[in-house]
């Protein structure tokens, strides 16, 4: 198969030759040799066809906003000509240096081509680099361009950036950062801490029977046993808002991205302190068409990670946050809580709600937090509910300080004070002005 150009040249050559024949003109015949030779020599030259790529690392993990240098080394065994290498990039990636499509001139013999470029990973998620595309052209374009692909099968995990929360020693003394009040675990190994007396039930050890207390009882036929506190870890339950208004701003810089980062930072903070941490997604502005509470059977489990501890739990939370998107959940805070109530009931947990408080979602949040406080036993003290408000006005204005932003933030403080009046602890975070660590440190007494 050849392209139109060599055919045109060949026809020119034969035109000269036939005209030379017809007129008996040897010079015309000789001139006809020039394009013919050009085509014949051109067709002897072969374009590159044998490609092989050095297998890349199977899985690469980076944080959101990180810069990544992608390098693909391709070996070309034969041919001469123009080689174009390229691979598809996720739309949310930003090219910083080089290009994901590059052109090389392949000289005769074996050659090693390097496709190298630098990208900024601007969005969380798991991406796949399936194949590297190549395009090989004849040096003179005499034969059609060849296309092919080389298997890469590389996975790129872009993790939400963890906002490191510094450890504050003796936090009960110095900090207001809420921690779970105490352990109230229903199952687990009994400790030596006495809890209460109760009637004997099937399965209880005879050692637990309190004979003196049993003797004092006159009416009941059942012996009385000592109940001890169960060994278990305290529970922190985080709720992350996925309502659409958190998406205001750019792909990289919006309230939702910072909310995800704060969630990840807080979960890591509590998991590192041996707490059980759970995570659920909710929507502070659920659509009217969202399914009601009765229809929760078909709800995807990816919206909830039930309380557990350890590294595996951290991994689960990370995976969930990797795929967290705006509007992923259509349930209000109250509905989301109802969905996981079995896992928090009796644990007296600390609830953390990460959201952006707006006029539109205030009532939904108030209703939800009221419901949360029902699961906290120690109501005389401040309820263990921490609300992290990720303020996005400045993000939406791309970091420009202007009066409109200040006005909106002022209005926001009014909404926050309404939540605070309910006895909740509300932390107000302006991501462009301060880090989450700084925000939490301001809660430390005396600092």
């Amino acid at each position: 198969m050849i392209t139109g150009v060599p055919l045109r040249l060949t026809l020119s050559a034969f035109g000269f030759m036939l005209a030379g024949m017809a007129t008996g003109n040897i010079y015309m015949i000789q001139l006809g040799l020039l394009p013919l030779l050009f085509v014949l020599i051109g067709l002897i030259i072969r374009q590159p066809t044998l490609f092989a790529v050095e297998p890349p690392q199977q899985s690469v993990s980076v944080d959101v906003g990180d810069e990544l240098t992608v390098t693909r080394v391709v070996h070309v065994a034969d041919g001469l000509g123009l080689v174009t290498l390229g691979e598809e990039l996720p739309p949310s990636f930003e090219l910083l240096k080089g290009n994901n499509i590059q052109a090389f001139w392949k000289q005769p013999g074996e050659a090693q081509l390097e496709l190298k470029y630098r990208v900024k990973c601007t969005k969380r998620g798991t991406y796949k680099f399936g194949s590297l595309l190549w395009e090989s052209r004849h040096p003179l374009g005499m034969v059609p361009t060849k296309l092919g692909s080389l298997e890469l099968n590389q996975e790129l995990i872009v993790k939400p950036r963890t906002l490191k929360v510094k450890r504050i020693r003796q936090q009960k003394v110095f900090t207001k950062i809420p921690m779970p009040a105490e352990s109230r675990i229903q199952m687990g190994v009994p400790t030596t801490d006495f809890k209460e007396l109760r009637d004997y039930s099937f399965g209880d050890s005879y050692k637990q029977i309190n004979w003196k207390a049993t003797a004092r009882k006159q009416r009941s036929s059942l012996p009385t046993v000592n109940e001890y506190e169960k060994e278990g870890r305290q529970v922190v339950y985080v709720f992350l808002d996925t309502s659409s208004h958190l998406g205001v701003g750019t792909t990289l810089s919006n309230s939702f991205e910072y909310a995800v980062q704060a969630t990840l930072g807080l979960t890591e903070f509590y998991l590192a302190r041996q707490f059980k941490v759970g995570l659920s997604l909710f929507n502070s502005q659920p659509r009217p068409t969202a399914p009601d509470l009765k229809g929760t059977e078909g709800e995807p489990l990816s919206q909830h990670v039930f309380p557990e501890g350890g590294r595996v739990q951290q991994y689960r939370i990370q995976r969930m946050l990797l795929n967290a998107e705006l509007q992923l959940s259509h349930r209000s805070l109250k509905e989301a809580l109802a969905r996981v109530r079995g896992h928090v009931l009796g644990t007296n947990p600390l609830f953390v709600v990460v959201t952006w408080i707006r006029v539109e979602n205030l009532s939904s949040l108030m209703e939800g937090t009221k419901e949360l406080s029902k699961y906290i036993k120690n109501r005389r003290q401040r309820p263990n509910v921490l609300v992290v408000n990720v303020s996005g006005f400045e993000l939406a204005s791309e970091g420009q300080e202007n009066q409109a932003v200040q006005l909106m933030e002022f209005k926001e403080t009014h909404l926050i004070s309404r939540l605070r009046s309910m006895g909740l602890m509300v932390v107000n975070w302006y991501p462009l002005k301060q880090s989450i660590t700084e925000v939490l440190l301001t809660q430390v007494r005396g600092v």
Partner: protein
Amino acid sequence: MIRTYIRVYEAFITILSSFLAVSSFFSTSLYRVISETLVETLNSFHILTTSTQSITTYAPIMLSTLVFLVVIYDYAAGKPENMIDIYEINLVLITPELLGFSKLNWLNLVEKTQIVEPTRGPSAVFFTGVIVLIGYVSLLFTARARETYSELEARGVVPSQLGAVFMRQNQASIALALSSAVVCAAVFYVLPPLKSVLAPIVSGLSYSYLILGAVAVAAISLGVGVYFIEQGEKREATKNGS
């Protein structure tokens, strides 16, 4: 920068080949015949003026201007089709002089005295033709390389890589055109002594040279055809194998 160099080369080869083609045309007896016929025609209609009397002076200037205007336009446009236009104009201009070396002058059959009579030697005419063909081939491929450049540029390839690829493509096409021209020139110089060796053998054959020539062209065509088919089959086999 490399694009500028290539444009300079294109300008050089365009001007050179067009100049040689125009010179070739004015060197033929055909031009003299045309101008004399024109003067006679104007005279017969009694519209002969001072300017038409000296048409042999003005016509070359007018024709050259016209040719160069068209050629400059095509050069400025710079597309492969424009390069083909330049070649076609040049071909038309050199054909009369080339035909002057024909052994079988068909134009003389119309009872005209030698209207395509060469005034220059065969080497000058042949090398004019070679330069016109080098110009055609190299201009065609530099224009195609420019198209490739624009396509890759639109796809976002960085300028440094584009420049390197563009330079290599042009080097390849120009080198190949010059190599072909060298082989043609070698054939041109080798043929006369070879002719003296082959002539006694060929003259012994009882067939017309036209028949021998037709056989030779048929053999070349067959060879080229077989080559193309074989190339196609090889590529098909490679495709299926991979």
